[in-house]
């Protein structure tokens, strides 16, 4: 390699912005992303390695922040949209991973991407009644950029669905207030990025990712297959 290339840990937030997220929940998301940016500026373990993309989904998927160093961007406000189409979210995040990693300098070493999926409801779409084809494409291990997916659910999210969405780790929030739920999810997410940046390395991939989700706020869910 003839020019400096730095290792990148790609992290994507895949956030449900359906109507049910209105109010405290979306406000908590909007407050948390600047905190993520502060963490990036203060902690070498995350700030020097983690690159973050933010993708939202409702009836459509939208790449709000392409994979980037959060320290370098102005964070846009996340707005509430319409329904809850997981298919659109999975399609969009796959595209965001592909575009984001392809845009890195040639030869850049990268960690396996991690997608933090966050939803407060069930998949509801007339256009895509079945979300699993998009999910299978996203997690197909023959695609070399296939991410790990960590699922966080709250509100009316369905535990079984979260267990299917997660490649290994799924959590259901125990808190009752949506704003608190989202805040705790964002705390857990931040802590997980920090831990993963430092120690995500293992011969058996099953042990490679460690997620810190405190049990006082979350119920860990078993992994279920589609």
């Amino acid at each position, binding site marked *: *390699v*003839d*020019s*400096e*290339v*730095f*290792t*990148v840990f790609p992290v994507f937030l895949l956030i449900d912005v359906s109507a049910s997220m209105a109010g405290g929940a979306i406000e908590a998301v909007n407050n948390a992303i600047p905190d993520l940016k502060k963490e990036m*500026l*203060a*902690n*070498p*373990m995350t*700030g*020097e*390695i983690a690159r973050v993309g933010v993708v939202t989904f409702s009836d459509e998927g939208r790449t709000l922040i392409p994979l980037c*160093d959060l320290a370098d961007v102005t964070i846009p406000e996340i707005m509430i949209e319409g329904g809850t189409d997981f298919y659109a979210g999975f399609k969009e995040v796959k595209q965001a991973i592909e575009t984001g990693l392809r845009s890195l300098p040639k*030869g850049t*070493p*990268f*960690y*396996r991407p991690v997608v933090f999926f966050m939803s407060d409801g069930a998949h509801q779409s007339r256009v895509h009644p079945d979300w699993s084809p998009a999910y299978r494409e996203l997690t197909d291990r023959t695609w*070399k950029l296939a991410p790990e997916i960590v699922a966080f659910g709250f509100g009316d999210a369905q535990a079984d669905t979260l267990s299917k969405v997660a490649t290994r780790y799924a959590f259901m929030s125990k808190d009752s207030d949506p704003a608190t739920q989202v805040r705790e999810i964002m705390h857990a997410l931040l802590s997980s990025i920090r831990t993963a*940046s*430092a*120690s*995500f*390395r*293992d*011969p058996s*991939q099953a*042990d*490679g990712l*460690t997620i810190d989700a405190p049990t006082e706020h979350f119920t860990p869910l078993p992994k279920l297959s589609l």
Partner: protein
Amino acid sequence: MNEEAMTGLEAEQSPADLSYPVQGDLRDLETRAPRIGKVIDGDTPRLAEAVAFRVPSVQLDGVQCGRFFLAAGSQVGLSHLREGTPRQDGYDFIATANGNLVVALADGLGSRPYSQVGARTFGELVVFLAAQDPGLTAAEYLTQAATVTGEFAQRNYNLDSHSIAFVGAVAVFDPQLCSIARVGDISAFARTDAGDFEELFVHQADTAANLVEASLPGRHEPEIVTSDSDRIVLATDGLAGDLRFSPAVREWLAKLWSRPVTGSAMNEALRFRRQGSHDDRTGVVVWRPVLDPAAIL
């Protein structure tokens, strides 16, 4: 002081809140090592509670070993200093009775609680085996030492192979050739006359950086390379990655290692800061033939 004032003071500064030294108050020696990319200064190094089997944060050598000169350094990574966990890399070496030099390197897996035990024991056992039987191949030292490491940890500490897992490599230098066997991602480089580093193992560039395919103890066929270069660098992945991906690091180390160096010069060599380079760094540099001792930096 009345009781109310005392209570107020205690509330502001309970012993649990106090720590030493104050952030930014650590004195360090000056360094000429480069800072590369966007680097963020870290916190005060710390040691977490209840850490067993801690090894020193730094290990250094610069010695003549029979016909060879060996300089080696291993430094704890920033990620460990921040988490309060010990260095998990290790190296060891022996000038054998038949005139060879045998070098062992190991890198404990970050996610395993006692991988430093595996890494350290492996190095000691390679050296012990080479002292007993200097005629084995690099692959034989590696597989035998790895097996005994697993048994040793189980018998003496009741630690299973999973909790001490590491990747390892053994190099046997004779006057003509160097043979290196590895399981995992430790790598080796030959120094070229142009001052560059030529990687001897094939690096899989298209896989995710954090996935290691094989570890020890365990049954894995070692990969083997040989080289007749008179300057070989063995490196765990923390340093190998910097050599692979950073022209600035290569330039810095090529200059410093243009001739044999002392242990403290090895420390200086590994003090560069590079964006995203937070793993333990271990490098063993072997020169052949031995130069005049007066030429040591």
